[in-house]
Each structure stands twice: as structure tokens, then as C-alpha cells.
């Protein structure tokens, strides 16, 4: 059997990215993508677009090498699709980060002119800015380095809806927290400390779950497994819920709401909780459908309750 050689070049720069020798003639594009991921792990198969012509159409995963119009040395051109969905999340998350800071620094035309670029005299306001910014920076970094997306793209309608949601709520919350007439929490430093503890624990928890989920599915594979607790205590929540990442996310926002004692934050938490519960129930249902031996004690999002 004659083996093929496959070289993969970057579609834009024509740079030689990968050279595969001894490729079976009946190998599929999907298999070639998997081989390519081995040398470039950041480009897992779902992100790859391979084509015969740099400006041509993407080859399908099912296409077989020997059926393509190539010689025994096949040249394929690579384009990174992953940027598409990462771009969406980056926009969704960079917005709130930036918008909140506009209010924090009291940029002109938001509050009265005498307040332009002034700073709040309440410690909790500064703390809240740090927490809010930390949350969205964490999300941005996770989008870039942690998450593995199963879909390459997102419909435009969704992008618009999501951005409106994130950016709108961020502006609404930030307006009140950074307002010159802001009223600090009723129970003072005690309330803020407790809230901060809740927030930090939940942020760590949420991150731990994201890492655990990432390790569950190796780069490029499409296998689905039941997530289980690891050595990290934050992942022990898997014993009780299917989607502890959502549980921790709700917890973070509740913490933030208690910290700022701001009704819009509480409303944002409520809306987020509603949406995440819907997602968690869906995920839980698909776990149950797929795995006969799925742990019966687990609830979708709230231990024992929901």
C-alpha cells in the first residue's frame, strides 16, 4: 500500500505548519485533523478548516484522502476557525469590564459635572470594582486558554442578544454602585467581609470546575464522560450537582449582591440564575439519557433542591 505524505500550510502566510508522512490512503480529513492537533494542540479539530486551495471551501471531515484530487504528496491549507467563537465571548466579556470602569472612574456625562473623575469615599466601592473586574478578566482568560468549544460559530442574533444582556446589566449595576449617592451596606464591614469570602470561594470553585471539565475531554476528542470530583475540594460539589460551575457562578453574584447591597445586582443574579438553571437542567437531562450509571444523588444546579 502506498502511503501519502501530507503537508499542511497556513492559508494566509503559506508557512509550513506540519508535515505528516506515512498517511494511509483511506485516512479521512478528521483523522488528519487529529494528527495535526498532536503537533499544534491549541488548534483542536473543531477549530480547523483544511482546504485544497487557500481560498477554497473547507474539506469535510468525512472526505477520504485518496479520493481527493491530490498527488501522493498532498498540500492542505489550514485556517483557524476557533477565532470565530472566541471572538464572540471576548466581545461579550470585554464589554462589561470596560463599561464598569467607565462608571468607576466617573467619566463625564454619566453623573453631574461636579463629580467628573472623582473617586468614591467608600472602600466597598473600590473593592466591588476589583471583584467585578477580576470576574470578567478571569472569564476572558478562560475563554482564551481553558474552554474547549464544541461549536465553531454562533449565530449573529445570539451575539447581539448576549452582548445587550451583559453590557446592559453591567452599565445598570455600575451606575448605582459608583454613584455619588451610593449607600454602603447596612451591616458595614462585617457584611462586606462575609460577601467577599463568598465571592472569592465561588470564583475559585468556578475556576476549579472549568479546569476539571477541560481535563475531562482531551484535545480533539469528542468523547463525553461523567465528571467526577478530583483531589481539588472545590470539585467535590460534583457529588451533589451536575453543573457546579453554574452553582458557583450564582454564588459569586449573590456574594457580589450582598457586598454592594444593590438591587440591580440582585436582579442580575436572579436573571442569571434562571438562565443557568435552564441550562443545568438540560445538561442534567442529557447526562441521564447518555449514561445509565449516572449518580442518582445529583441535582442539576442546587444540591438536593433544583
Amino acid at each position, binding site marked *: 500500500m502506498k502511503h501519502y505524505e501530507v503537508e499542511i500550510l497556513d492559508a494566509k502566510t503559506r508557512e509550513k505548519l506540519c508535515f505528516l508522512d506515512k498517511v494511509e490512503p483511506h485516512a479521512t480529513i478528521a483523522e488528519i485533523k487529529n494528527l495535526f492537533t498532536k503537533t499544534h494542540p491549541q488548534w483542536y479539530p473543531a477549530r480547523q478548516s483544511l482546504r485544497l486551495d487557500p481560498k477554497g471551501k473547507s474539506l469535510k471531515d468525512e472526505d477520504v484522502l485518496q479520493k481527493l484530487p491530490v498527488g501522493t504528496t498532498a498540500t492542505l491549507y489550514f485556517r483557524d476557525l476557533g477565532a470565530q467563537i472566541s471572538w464572540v465571548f471576548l466581545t461579550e466579556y470585554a464589554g462589561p469590564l470596560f463599561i464598569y470602569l467607565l462608571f468607576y472612574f466617573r467619566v463625564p456625562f454619566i453623573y453631574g459635572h461636579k463629580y467628573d473623575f472623582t473617586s468614591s469615599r467608600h472602600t466597598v466601592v473600590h473593592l466591588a470594582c476589583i471583584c467585578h473586574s477580576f470576574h470578567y478578566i478571569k472569564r476572558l482568560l478562560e475563554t482564551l486558554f481553558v474552554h474547549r468549544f464544541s461549536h465553531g460559530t454562533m449565530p449573529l442574533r445570539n451575539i447581539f442578544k448576549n452582548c445587550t444582556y451583559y453590557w446592559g446589566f453591567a452599565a445598570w449595576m455600575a451606575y*448605582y*454602585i459608583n*454613584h455619588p*449617592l*451610593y*449607600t454602603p451596606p*447596612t451591616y458595614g464591614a462585617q457584611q462586606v467581609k462575609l460577601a467577599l469570602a463568598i465571592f472569592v470561594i465561588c470564583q475559585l470553585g468556578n475556576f476549579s470546575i472549568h479546569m476539571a471539565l477541560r481535563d475531562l475531554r482531551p484535545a480533539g476528542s469528542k468523547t463525553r464522560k461523567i465528571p467526577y470530583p478530583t483531589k481539588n475540594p472545590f470539585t467535590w460539589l460534583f457529588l451533589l450537582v451536575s453543573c457546579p460551575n453554574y452553582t458557583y457562578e450564582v454564588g459569586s453574584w449573590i456574594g457580589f449582591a450582598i457586598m*454592594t*447591597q*444593590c*438591587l*440591580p445586582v440582585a436582579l442580575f443574579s436572579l436573571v442569571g440564575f434562571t438562565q443557568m438553571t435552564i441550562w443545568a437542567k438540560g445538561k442534567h437531562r442529557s447526562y441521564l439519557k447518555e449514561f445509565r450509571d449516572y449518580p442518582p444523588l445529583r441535582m442539576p444546579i442546587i444540591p438536593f433542591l433544583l
Partner: protein
Amino acid sequence: MAAVAATAAAKGNGGGGGRAGAGDASGTRKKKGPGPLATAYLVIYNVVMTAGWLVIAVGLVRAYLAKGSYHSLYYSIEKPLKFFQTGALLEILHCAIGIVPSSVVLTSFQVMSRVFLIWAVTHSVKESEDSVLLFVIAWTITEIIRYSFYTFSLLNHLPYLIKWARYTLFIVLYPMGVSGELLTIYAALPFVRQAGLYSISLPNKYNFSFDYYAFLILIMISYIPIFPQLYFHMIHQRRKILSHTEEHKKFE
């Protein structure tokens, strides 16, 4: 717009009862529908609502004949209007439990907008009551037709006249209702501003503020994109449903 939304959403899927509402337009609809117990309940519900709105209609006519003028006619039917319009909240429940195949979201939107107008504007701002008559009349006629339409549909015995009325009178009743609603909200504005009604300002311990005056203005503005959409949807439905029936009649 509460008037428009009510009939539009209802037309699309059958808000008060009767999936036959939209059913007779599309021959491909599967005949599932509510069970016998649910059907009986819905028939009773729709009959009661038809009766309720008839009471309001009769009340209006009698009050006009007695007083000889349009002034304060609202007070003569204030209680049944509040009762029966608020009772329509049940229709959200009907969608939620599935005995009516409408979207919960759409039905909620239409009923809540009606309830909002009745309680949060007309009831809350006594001074807005003068323009109320315009939309009350529009709603009354619309609802009598709509609920009787559902009643007959559920009983599989829909007179063409009712179907025709439902899909034709809206042409006049919608704009009439919308005008009444907008005028009423507009009339309420200065009093809301003056009394600071339902508004909260900073500073306060919830770190929240709400300006009901601005909110009402936003509501009025929202009629601009929403009303034309609903109105033209209804016109489209009319063409579809009334011409379909004409063809059916040819083959009878």
C-alpha cells in the same frame, strides 16, 4: 397595544382557549387538543368571559342612556372591567399547563399589558380616566368576539359570522384601542410627575432608583415599533384565514 397584542397573539395560537382558532387556517395542524375535562373547563371559562364582557358592554350602553353624556361612564363599569380583565391572567396559566397551545411568553405579554393599563395607569391615576372610554369600548367589542370565537371553536361549531368579525373588526378596533391607551397614559403623565408615583430616588439603602414617569414615556415609545408589527400580522392572518374559508365553502 394591549388591544392589538391580545388579538394578534390570540389569533396566532388561541390565547383564551380553542386551538381551532388558528387550526382552521392550516390544514396540516395535528388534531391533538386538550382532553375532555380541560375542554369542558375551557368552554366554561370562555363562556364566563364572554358574559363578563357583555355585562360591561351593556353597562356602558345603559349608563350612557341614563346620563346622556360620555362623562364618567368608566365608573359605571369599573368593577366588572377590573374583574374580568384581571381574570384573563388565567390564560397565562392555561398556556403554562398546556391546555391551550399558545406561547406563554406571548400570552403573558398581552395580558400583562392589559392588566398594567387597568391597574398601573387607570386605577392609579384617577385623573387619566377621561380617555379611558376609547380603549374600553375597543376592548369590550374585541373580547366579546374573541371569547365567543373560542367558545364556538371548542364546541366545533364556529359560525362564519364570528370568524369574520374576529378577523375584520380589528381593522378599526386596534387603532381605536391603541389611541385610547396612548391618550390615557399621556393624560396620566403630569400627575405621575407631580406625585412621584411609584418612583424611588437616590440615596436609599437598596441603591436603586426608578422613575415611573420616564418608564411610562418609554412604554408609549414602544408602541411605535410594536403596533405596526402586530397590526400587519393580523392583516396577513385575515387574508390567509378568510380566503381559506372561502375556498372550503366552494367545495361544500
